Structure formats: C-alpha cells, structure tokens
C-alpha cells in the first residue's frame, strides 16, 4: 500500500441478532483527506465507525493503521484514542450532569493530579476559538443540543489525533456553525489528519469531501473520488434505485391552504422557557417556525404542547378555550409533538419498537384501557411498513436501531394518534435523503387529505420552504415576522432571520 494511507479496514463483518449490519466492507482513509461515508438509514455507517473505535467487537475482517502490516487490535474507545483515532458519535455521549470543562477533559487527564482551574482556562480558550457560546463551568445539560454537539466536536478535535471521525456532527447545527466546523476540518486536513465524515446533507459532502464511500444494507457499494460522482448518481448508489424513481420524489409541491377553520389559537402564550407570543393555525395548514438556533423556535412549540411549565396566555382549540398545562392536556386536545432531541425526549431506549410506536396512543386511550397485544402488533406492523423502518423485529429495543430509524419510530408514534394538530420539531434530523422527501410528501399529504394542521421546524430552510405555506420568523426569542406567498423564498427568509439589512 502507499504510505499515505492512515487506515485500512478489510472485509469487516458485524452481525447483530437478526441483522447483518456489515458484510465484508472495505474502507481506506488517506492522510489529509476528508472521506464521506454515505448510505441510507441503517446502511451500517455508525456500526462501521463503532467497530473501528472498539465500541463493538467485529465478527471478521482486519484493521490496519498507518499502513503497517500488523493488525491493529482496538478493543475499546480508549484503545482507539491511544492510537490517535478520536470520534464524535452520532448520539452525544458526553455526561449531561458534568460541566463543559469537565466534559472536555474527563478521561484525558492521565494519571496526573487534576488542576481544574487550569482546564477551565484551557476550555475557555478552546470555546472561544471555536466560537462556541458556552461557559466552562456551565452544566452541559443546560446547553442547547447544538452547543452540546459543538462541545463534543471540540473535545474530539482538541486531542492530538491522526484520524478524526464525525458521525452526523452537523445534524443540529445551523449554517454558520457548519461553516465554522468546515473551517476546522480543512485546517486539520492541512495538518494531515484523515477525517471520516458521515452526514445526510449532500451539499455538505460536496463542500468538503475528497472521497466518498457508499454503503447499502451493510454492503460496500464503492469508493469514489468526489469529482467523478455527481449528486444524482450518489443518491442512486445509496438507494439502489434508478434515477427515474427519484425524479418522481422531487415533485413535492407546496400547497397553500388557509381560510378554513382555525384549529389552534394562542394569545400571549408564555412558558418558563419562552416569552409571550401569539400563534394560530388553520385546519389543513402547514406552517413553520424558523430562526437561528436559540431564537426560541423550539421553546415556542414546547409551550404550545405544555412541555415546559406554561406561565400565561389564552389558548383556544377549535374555538373553545382550553387549558394546556401539561403534555397530557395537549394530547387530549388532539395535539401531537415530536420533540427535537430524540435521545433525551423521544425514545424509551430499552422498550421494543412496538411499545415505542403505540405509547402515545395507549396513553390517550387511558390507563384502564390497554390495547390487546394483537392490536399493538397490527399498529406497529402498519407503521413499520408505511415508514419503512429498518428493524429486525417489533420486539427489538428501539435503542439498537440506527439513528434515522429511531426517528421514524417516534414519528410513527405521533402519526398513529391521528392528531388534529401535529408539531414536528426537526422531524427529518438524521434521516436519509430519500426518506426525507417521503416525509415531506407525507406531511403535505396529511394536511391535504386528512386536513391535519402541521407546524414544522427545520434547520434546513429549503425544507421549510418546500412544505410550509406560512413561515413565522423568530429572533432573540421574539416573533419578528411572518412570511407567506411570494415572500417564501430563500433570500427573504434569510434576510428576515438575520434582521433586515445591517
């Protein structure tokens, strides 16, 4: 092999009960290269990374580091760190109840006596240089998901590494932060670090990567130089479908539907986390909250659902005043809410896919009306098929599904309750391109055919523009504008978000 290779994986196999996650996969990483690892949800990307970093034991194959003939034995993430592989996993693996500084340095202080003062100073420097809006002594759980993700990245990058692995690091970052991360990646690349980059954002792949390896159903499809693989072909390789099928998917059109009955209306609604705001949605309407991270868009929808403690405001559902002070009240008023942070607020990790799907509906049916087993199985089956959830069985614990598939299960949970008003906070986070379009189509279809009202939040403005007929723009936790009709274009939205011309 050439001596610019830092990492070779050959014939990697990994079997989980009921799933062949990796089958004879090869992967090569060169020095100073950004290598995108692509594939649909459940293709095996995260598994390949976890095998490489010793989280999972591989069933077969070999790993060589630095072009050496000798097999590298990586049995634990610590081993991986020692030989210079540092990783940001898809699900944030920091300790929420420790401070930012502690999270940055824990497990890396060696056997020396720890001088936290010194580490806090260092942390402050790193946070500063990366522009991460957090304080070293802040408890991590008090930071937003995006900041947590940035801290995880900072932790990984700060280590002296030869290989840096980023598994969907950008899923909850906004454009500015993504640019910052890319700057960092290019920097490291110049220093000769090999970077493995997993993402479902195709533009990001083309913006930074040199090479792409595509996986499908745990098998290697191929390795390509970026210039030789146009976007359409990449998608086709990932999905294993013809381009024609894709063209069909692209035909998602925006539909404007208002003037009908107002399903939900709030006046001066506020919670412990959000300032008072007004909001309303018509039957069959799809609208959205947009704004930068921390602009208060998620906090607003949480107030609607009663997820945080509601502190004031008047709420009318179907024209009748109701009091929504906790999620159960909202569910009774036929409101559904898919939370932003699926690991913390969404999944019940050890419970089966089936229990996770039926959970909300079961709660709504009431404590004394448990569904029969066969009914649960039928519902679960229906939605596993409808959303093409990749799982070994209904009994598989949701925690062992791939990230994107977990997201689909939570989506299924709320679709199953058939709410009048569904709030989706980042429903397509971590979902592959093909499915993303399917979900957008589904949202429009629900609105049109079942007259469901949907409030949609997404960090991707294009996605918002594709599905929403009305955009509520937030800045600094206040609503600063509402866009409809011809104002719904990228330029106007960006301008409103940023705060006019300045």
């Amino acid at each position: 092999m050439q001596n610019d290779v830092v990492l070779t994986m050959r014939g990697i196999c990994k079997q989980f009960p009921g799933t062949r996650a990796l089958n004879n996969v090869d992967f090569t990483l060169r020095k100073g290269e950004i290598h995108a690892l692509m594939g649909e949800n459940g293709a095996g990307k995260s598994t390949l990374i976890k095998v490489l970093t010793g989280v999972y034991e591989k069933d077969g194959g070999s790993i060589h580091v630095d072009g050496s003939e000798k097999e590298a034995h990586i049995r634990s993430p610590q081993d991986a760190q020692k030989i210079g592989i540092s990783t940001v996993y898809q699900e944030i693996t920091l300790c929420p109840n420790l401070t930012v500084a502690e999270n940055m340095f824990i497990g890396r202080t060696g056997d020396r006596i720890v001088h936290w003062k010194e580490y806090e100073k260092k942390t402050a420097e790193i946070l500063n240089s990366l522009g991460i809006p957090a304080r070293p002594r802040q408890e991590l759980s008090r930071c937003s998901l995006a900041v947590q993700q940035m801290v995880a990245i900072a932790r990984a990058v700060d280590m002296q590494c030869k290989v840096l692995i980023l598994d969907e690091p950008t899923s909850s970052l906004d454009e500015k932060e993504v640019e910052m991360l890319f700057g960092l990646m290019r920097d490291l690349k110049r220093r000769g670090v090999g970077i493995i980059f997993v993402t479902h954002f195709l533009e990001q792949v083309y913006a930074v990567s040199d090479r792409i390896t595509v996986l499908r159903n745990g098998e290697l499809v191929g390795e390509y130089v970026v210039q030789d693989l146009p976007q359409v072909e990449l998608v086709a390789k990932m999905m294993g479908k013809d381009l024609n099928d894709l063209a069909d998917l692209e035909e998602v059109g925006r539909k404007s539907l208002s003037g009908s009955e107002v399903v939900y209306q709030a006046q001066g609604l506020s919670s412990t986390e959000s300032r008072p705001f007004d909001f309303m949605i018509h039957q069959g309407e799809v609208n959205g909250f947009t704004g930068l991270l921390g602009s208060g868009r998620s906090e607003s929808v949480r107030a609607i659902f009663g997820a945080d403690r509601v502190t004031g405001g008047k709420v009318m559902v179907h024209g009748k005043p109701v009091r929504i002070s906790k999620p159960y009240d909202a569910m009774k008023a036929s409101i559904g809410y898919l939370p932003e942070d699926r690991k913390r607020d969404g999944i019940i990790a050890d419970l089966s896919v089936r229990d996770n799907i039926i959970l909300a509906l079961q709660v709504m049916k009431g404590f004394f009306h448990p569904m029969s087993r066969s009914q649960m199985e039928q519902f679960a089956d229906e939605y596993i098929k409808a959303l093409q959830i990749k799982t070994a069985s209904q009994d598989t614990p949701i925690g062992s599904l791939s990230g994107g598939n977990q997201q689909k299960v939570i989506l299924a949970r709320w679709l199953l309750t058939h709410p009048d008003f569904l709030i989706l906070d980042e429903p397509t986070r971590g979902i592959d391109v093909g499915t993303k379009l399917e979900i957008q189509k589904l949202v429009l279809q629900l609105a049109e055919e079942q007259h469901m009202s949907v409030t949609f939040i997404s960090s991707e403005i294009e996605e918002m523009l594709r599905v929403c007929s009305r955009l509520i723009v937030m800045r600094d936790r206040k609503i600063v504008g509402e866009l409809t009709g011809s104002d719904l274009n990228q330029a106007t939205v960006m301008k409103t978000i940023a705060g006019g011309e300045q």
Partner: protein
Amino acid sequence: MRSSVKGRGTSGLGQLIIPLVALALLVLFNLFRDPSFFSISMATNNAGNPVLSGNLISIIDSASELAIISMGMTLVTASCGGQDISVGAVGAIAGAIFVKVVLGFASINVGVVILGILACCVVTILFKMFNGTLVAVFRIQPMIATLILYSCGRSIAYWINGDATPQINSPIISAMGMTIPGIPVPTPIFAVVLVGLLLALIFRLTNTRLYSQTVGINQGAARLNGINPVATKLLSFGLLGICVAIAAVIGVARLGNLSHKTILVDIEMDAILAVAIGGNNLGGGRFRLSGSILGAYIIQMLTTTLYAMNVATVNVKAYKAIVIIVIVVAGSPVVKARLTALWNRLRSGSAGTAGKEVA
C-alpha cells in the same frame, strides 16, 4: 462515558436464562448430594390433618413472604430506579396492626381476620405513599427516602402493642400460616399464587407495566407522552405496600405471635437480591416479575441447602453471599455480552472461520 452494553434489555426469555441455570444447578447439586433431597411424603400434623412434607415443600413454603415482597420490589425498582429498604420494618408495623386489630375482638372469626388484613393494607399503603412522595415529588433517592422507616419501623411496631409481643391463638390464623385442614399444601403458597395472579390481572387490565417501565427508562420522555411520572411511582409504591401487608400477615400467622424484632427481618436485602438475580436492572426500566419470583426461590433453596449440609448458622450468610455474587456476576451485562458473543461465534463458527481464511 456510558458503556455500550449497559442497560440494553434482553428480550424474550433471555433475562431468565441465568436464574434458571442457577436454579437447575442448585437442584442438581442437591440431587447429587442426597438423591432423596426432593422427595415428598404425606405426613400428619399436630392437629391430625394430612400435610405434604419434604424439603421442596418447605423451600417453597418458607420463600412465600420473600416471593411476595420481591414482586412489589420489582415494580418500585422498575419505575423509580431504586429500592425500598424499609419493607421489613414496615412489615413489622403491619404485623403489629394486624395483631392489634384482631386481638381487639372478643372472638376471632373470618370477618375479623379480613378486617385485620384490610387495616394492615391501609397502613402499609399510607407508609408507602409517604416513601413514594419523597421519591416521586421530592426526588429523593429511594434508598434514602426509605432509610428513616428502616431505622424506626420496628420501634413503632413495638409501641403499637404496648411494648409487648402478643400471642394469637386461633385456628383461622394458624390455618393461614400453616395449612387449611383438608388441604395438604401450605397456605402461604396460595398467597404467592394469589398475589401473582392479582398483579397479572392488574397488568392485563391497566397500563401499569408500560407506564412504570417507561418512567423508569426515561422520565422526561414519559411526561412528554402524557404519562404522569409521580402517579406512576406512587402506584408502584402502593402495590408494594399491599405486598408488604400480605407478607406481614403470613409472617404473624406462621408463628402465631408478633415478634417485632424477627418478623420479616433482613427481608429487604433478600428481596433486592431476588430482583437482581431475576435479571432485572436495579437501575429501573424493563422488568420481569417471574425473574424476581425465581430469584426468591433460589435464595430460599440456597439457605435450605446450606442448612441441610449442616453448615453452622453463623457461616450460612457467608456461603450464601459467595453463591449470590457468582450468580449476579454471571448475569451482569459485561459477562452476558461476552457469553452472547461466544455463543454467536460458536453458532456461526464454520461461516466465521471461512470468512477469515479468505481475508
């Protein structure tokens, strides 16, 4: 950092494999040592009624209180992610209440006994609501929240009957603690079945199981799905309270007296162990009652076996500890993951090696 193996619930029968193997090994060991160890014979008791006797019967009989409390402990563990260490002490209080109520009547008939049991249940539920409130509302660790009652419960039991250890002489009570004339099986065994059926019925008719597991795994997400975590935790404490009351009544009936010092003594530790041996995660979440019941019988069989081997009473605890450590380690996530990996490799042995040769 969290280890990847932690907390993954094993589905299906997986959880029960270790306790079943442990039980089987204990049975085999005893059969090897003494082939007649498990033989059952018909005998007549003091009252002249035919009763079944033998080691097996005595093991199942004397494990009754433990089995019942283990079931309740499993529920609390599942929803609160912690254990109640006051079950023995609250059991003593319950026993005292039972005795007090029953002795308050001139003659003891079935109605009086039922009244006593009900009073007992009310008291234990109240005490458990106190614990439950501390845990669910004030978010105090269950072990700390129950520590207070653990240390003062037996004194309270002593006061209730005016600083005495009262006796009850009644055929009804002794039928409850030993055997009902005409039925050769000890009554406490029926109580275990009854409690088991009751809980099974509750799981069938309500969402208790789903809710307590959900709350135990991810309380925040449970709330966002409309579940009330406080009510769920209180419910499991309430059910534990009923279990404690029934165990306490059996404890009193067995001896025909109330000894506040010895009734249900050390049962909290055995109950926690039974939950753990049954493969349930002491950190909360998914659970299996059958595992805990199995755990209770394993502990009792171990004790009986050690006594049958003429191990001195002072040493029994030490030997018990050793065996239990082995079982708990064998069921630990780390060892389990290793064993599963080994099993998978053995099963796909031929395919695996073929793949390696190619590479």
